[in-house]
């Protein structure tokens, strides 16, 4: 009950604030839907929506693909499987801030600091350093890579658990019937993983679309607004421009999506328990 209060009360305050023009230091005034209408017309907010979708779509897509590959590799590992599973999970327990800092340096334009530039220059593949983070596309790619790196081990471990619960007889029967490796994967492995796939994708979409740490630490939403997403823009408007009402409204714009996704995830997870 305490926790319900700790979340429920702030949540209702959030909705209330979004209908006011609260500026820090001034009492709030009721302005109805004005914040919502303002943002709907705002070009930078539109960029933010697009960025959030690109960021989420690209990271989740990459995580699913590499997660599947990682699970297949681990599943085929005959010795030391638990050791490698533990090793590959390391990014997932590391602080996101440290991951974001690390990838910031990995992509840094200065050869001594940036991993890619150092190695490529050293190998003679580049004649001058590339400033990855200075271009809109490069910055977006960098934040996606950092997010992917943190998230894919979780996908891999979940899919591995899913694969281990598929009965081996199915594969034997399919082999006897002459199905090749690809058809076995397509007709047995993927359907067997359907439930895990749905749960991991939905959960990650919910957390990625509201991600703050990686984007904030790596780019602060820049260059320009090229990597600004819901959470970082909300922070920017609320704490740098001091417009709390509008800041909260930005976060609330993501709520319809959550309302659509959360029941789906809960149902899937509760069914697993039943």
């Amino acid at each position, binding site marked *: 009950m305490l926790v319900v209060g700790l979340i429920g009360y702030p949540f209702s305050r*959030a909705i209330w604030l979004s209908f006011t023009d609260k500026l820090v230091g001034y009492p709030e005034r009721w302005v109805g839907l004005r914040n919502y209408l303002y943002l709907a017309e705002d070009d930078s907010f539109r960029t933010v929506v697009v960025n959030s979708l690109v960021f989420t779509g690209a990271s989740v897509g990459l995580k699913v693909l590499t997660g599947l590959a990682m699970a297949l590799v681990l599943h085929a590992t005959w010795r030391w499987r638990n050791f490698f599973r533990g090793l590959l999970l390391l990014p997932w327990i590391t602080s996101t801030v440290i991951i974001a800092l690390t990838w910031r340096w990995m992509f840094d334009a200065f050869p001594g600091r940036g991993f890619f530039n150092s190695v490529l220059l050293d190998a003679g593949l580049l004649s001058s350093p590339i400033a990855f983070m200075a271009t809109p596309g490069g910055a977006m790619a960098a934040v996606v890579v950092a997010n992917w790196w943190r998230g894919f081990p979780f996908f891999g471990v979940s899919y591995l658990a899913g694969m281990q619960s598929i009965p081996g007889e199915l594969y034997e029967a399919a082999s006897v019937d002459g199905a090749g490796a690809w058809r076995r994967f397509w007709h047995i492995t993927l359907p067997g993983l359907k439930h895990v796939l749905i749960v991991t994708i939905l959960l990650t979409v919910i957390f990625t679309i509201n991600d*703050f740490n990686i984007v904030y630490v790596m780019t602060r939403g820049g260059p320009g607004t090229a990597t600004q997403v819901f*959470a970082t823009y909300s922070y920017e408007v609320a704490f740098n421009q001091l417009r709390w009402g509008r800041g909260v409204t930005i976060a609330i714009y993501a709520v319809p999506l959550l309302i659509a996704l959360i029941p789906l995830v809960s149902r899937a997870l509760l069914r697993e328990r039943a």
Partner: protein
Amino acid sequence: MRAWKAATVVGLAAFALVVLVPFWWITSMSFKTYEQIQFAQSIYVPRPFTWENYRGLWLETRFPLWLRNSAVTAIVVTAITTVIACLSGYAVARLRFPGREAVASLILILYLVPPALLFIPLYRVLAELGATNSLAALCLSYPTFTVPFCTWLLIGFFKALPAELEEAALVDGATRVQALRRVLLPLAAPGIVAAAIFAFTLSWNEFLYALVFIQDERTLTVPVGLNLLIYGDVFHWGQLMAASVITTVPVVTLYMFVQRWMVEGLAAGGVKG
């Protein structure tokens, strides 16, 4: 078959490389001198090898203080979370009361509400309580995400334990509290340890709330402090890397001891990814 084995080995090596290279890069930078970093000398392995960054970090910055703040917060939050999550997890898994299913769904939904939505109103609530700018703000706000998650995890663990054991204890004259303490808790110990470690890791790594709720440089936690080091003094790359290494080590060490339980908990609960 040989081709498959070769493909597996190549795949494993590729994944291990992808995971380890960034760790190796920050560790190696933390042992390089300023000149080595600035002029791209001895790129792969620091030669000569220096402890200068660690010494500077420890003596010249507020890092030790931040480390202490992070540790205090994480330990307090872990203690609070473990107690609440054990009791509520037990209640939902074992006691029969109306609306039990609804409570289970509610806990899950609370876990899924993202901090990005709550940080502004939570800040106001904490400001009204006069708790901002202190570790109390973090100790109050972190349970909003650790408790639902750990409760959810423990419901699963408690449900998996056979009810007969507890019933036998009750028949033998134990009270419910005794049955919980003497029979169920020891059996659920692996789950409780996993939940505690998740709570510790989540609080140790938390960034957004700490960034928003704390302004005083001496009250910061490590993640926010590190973020300050980048902009505060652009020359100390090596120190920043040293700080990252020091911060990562406790979590990785904890994790190595209890990897098996954590992975089981992870498979049982479905965790952020």
